[in-house]
């Protein structure tokens, strides 16, 4: 089921690319023709806006979920659990100095990986939330919107990579820890706990993505927000 969903997603992604996503000219197809593409700063601007939106949505969703499903006593414990969020194959920089030492390439790649790893878990989260009896409509809408925006962001970053780095598409496998086949067997409490953890971790990762992209933006372009005055 999940594999099928994953393949569907990939197909969709390719399809979107095929449909002439206006971010970039496909060099192969339009070798002879000149096509206009979006300049870099605009592209970065859009990407940053996307990331900001996603983060805001994730924050709101987390808050909603917490109010709805998590009793007060549990909230602190949940966080105390510690390593609820994902383990990665590579270490993500934890401080500004570290981050500033990272190259553009690395930043972009990290962003892309992060984005791609969260597409499927969010999709499954939607299914889980639908199963709940009293999930508020707002929460469902927000998660749906989040998913869609994430997909868009991924496309944008891909284009950005291609533009900035001149590389092809990179695909990574999805976040395994979240795609647990045992969703159905979990009881209510477990399910809720897991969903809450999912949302919290997603929120954190969304913030990372946003921060990296903002750094990249200020590095590459003279955006107003980067100016001291």
């Amino acid at each position, binding site marked *: 089921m999940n594999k099928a969903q994953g393949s569907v997603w990939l197909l969709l992604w390719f399809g979107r690319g095929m449909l002439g996503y206006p971010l970039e000219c496909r060099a192969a197809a339009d070798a002879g023709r000149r096509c206009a593409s979006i300049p870099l700063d605009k592209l970065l601007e859009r990407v940053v806006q996307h990331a900001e939106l996603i983060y805001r949505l994730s924050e709101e969703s987390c808050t909603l979920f917490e109010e709805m499903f998590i009793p007060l006593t549990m909230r602190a414990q949940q966080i105390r659990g510690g390593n609820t969020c994902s383990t990665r194959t590579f270490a993500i920089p*934890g*401080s500004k100095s570290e981050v500033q030492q990272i190259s553009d390439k690395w930043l972009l790649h990290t962003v892309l990986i992060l984005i791609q790893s969260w597409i499927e878990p969010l999709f499954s989260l939607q299914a889980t939330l639908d199963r709940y009896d009293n999930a508020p409509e707002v929460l469902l809408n927000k998660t749906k919107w989040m998913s869609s925006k994430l997909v868009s962001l991924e496309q944008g970053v891909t284009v950005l990579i291609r533009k900035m780095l001149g590389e092809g598409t990179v695909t990574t496998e999805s976040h395994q820890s979240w795609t647990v086949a045992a969703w159905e067997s979990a009881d209510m409490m477990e399910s809720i706990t897991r969903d809450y953890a999912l949302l919290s971790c997603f929120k954190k990762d969304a913030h990372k993505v946003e921060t990296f992209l903002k750094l990249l933006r200020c590095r590459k372009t003279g955006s107003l927000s980067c100016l001291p005055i």
Partner: protein
Amino acid sequence: MWKHPGALLILSLLAFVVLCCSCLSPPGKPRLTSCRSPEKETFTCWWEPGSDGGLPTNFSLFYRKENSDTVFECPDYHTAGKNSCFFSKNDTSIWVNYNITVVATNALGSNFSDPVDVDVVYIVQPHTPENLTVVLEGEENPFLVVRWEPPRMADTRSGWITLIYQLRVKLEEEEEWEEHFAGQQKQFNIFSLHSGEVYMVQVRCKPDHGFWSEWSTTAYVKVPDYISKDRSIWILITVFSGFFFLVFIWTMHINRNSVKHFLLPPVPGPKIKGFDTQLLKSGKSEEIFSALVIQGFPPPSYYDDLLVEYLEVYDNKEQVLMLDRKGLQDSRFKSKSSSDSDSGRGSCDSHTLLMEKCGEPKENQTMISQVKAGETIREPMMKNDSSTPESANMKTKTWPTLCSSCHHEQNLCYHSIPEMPIQCDVPSNHFSSTHPQDYWEQPAGIYHKKTPSGYRHTQAYSEFNIRGINIKEATFPPSKSMEYVEVQHVNQENTLILKPIRQEVPDLFHTECAGLDYSKVNRVVSDSVLLLQQDMSDQCFSDYQDREIPVQSGTQHQSGKPPDHLQVSGAPETSLNLNGYVDTAAMLY
């Protein structure tokens, strides 16, 4: 006395406290109050201690990072002040949960606080913005330009942290602040200033996800006095509108009458033709009503046909015929308008012609006096001059009661009121009104109709001006027609031989004493002569004798009569009534 127990109590309390103070105990539980990061690179945590426990207490902070079980202690206890722990850049990792615990330790024991999980990203609260400057710009419409800088430590340049700003303004004497959102810009303009006032400005900032900073220090600015464009325009508008308003008022004042008529239209007055309100005010109703009378109504054309010719016959011997008439009249005719002679004068007889003829000897003359209708009958009051006014007065007095409805008729008859009281001295000697049998009483109905005609005489005295209005002359004909008598000749004895002109009402006779139109028959002489008497008394004659013969034919030829008197003697018949009227009908049958 009770001081003793009080003192004891106090002493015991003191002892207890001392003992308690000497009770040493482990410290109370500390509590982490807050952790804050000003720039997302470092952060600080503060705690508050619990109860002391009587012994000096040490506090230490331990933390553990996410995904690691290594416990670290706070690197810096002093930088941030008392009961704080400062994490430097090297010790700070973002996107990592810190599990922090504070431990209070004294000689007796230690106490752990509740752990707190912290992610630096979410606890960012920057410092206040710096270098807040407020400048007044613009000459005519000045406005404030507010500028500031981000807090020094926040690295917005690299995009590490993005700040959004908010500023607030108020007048110095106001209480409420007016807040403005400035976004990520570091400059802001404030318009619509009050001239001559002092403004206060403050600014603060917040990271896109984090906490608001404190408000910066206040900047003051004074706005100089100026007249805003808006105000000058308003002044201009006011002046112009005032001017137009004055012009409007002046125009209204000039035309106030027409305005008044427009707003409050006058009540329409009565519009009756011929009606004059001024006359009404003067109070003379006669004039008013006379004005209402229509001159030409009814059209007089066909009244000419109805003009009746009258002959008035007088007996000069007698007193005023009028007086006779008076006597003749019965109670029904309250108006003593006996000015009528007996010669079949219907209604409006007496006219001026009569008066002319009053003094003439009527010998061998046809005494057909044509009386024009509408002329007043001026009875030959003659001798009764004195009585005339009386009669007149009486008439006038009695008249209104009698015939209020007869206005029109009366108006018809009497033209010349002032001409009335002319006395004629009728030589009664000359006139011997031998009334042929034509002199008949009129039928009752006609007679009645005639009654108003009698009134007409009196109406001569009314105040109404007769203007030849022949209103009810229609009523004339039936009543009046019959009184015509034609004098055929005068015989040797100065007796008039009368011959009726018309014979319209031949056979109906009234036995009543109508008075006006009748003459009394004194006696019949030689079978064919009626002696008419002019009776002074109020009663009619009752001495009617039969005279069979000539009455029937209607023409009587009198022959041989005694002077003066025509007396009818004879056995009264049934038709004869006490009044003395000649009932020719009786004679006939």
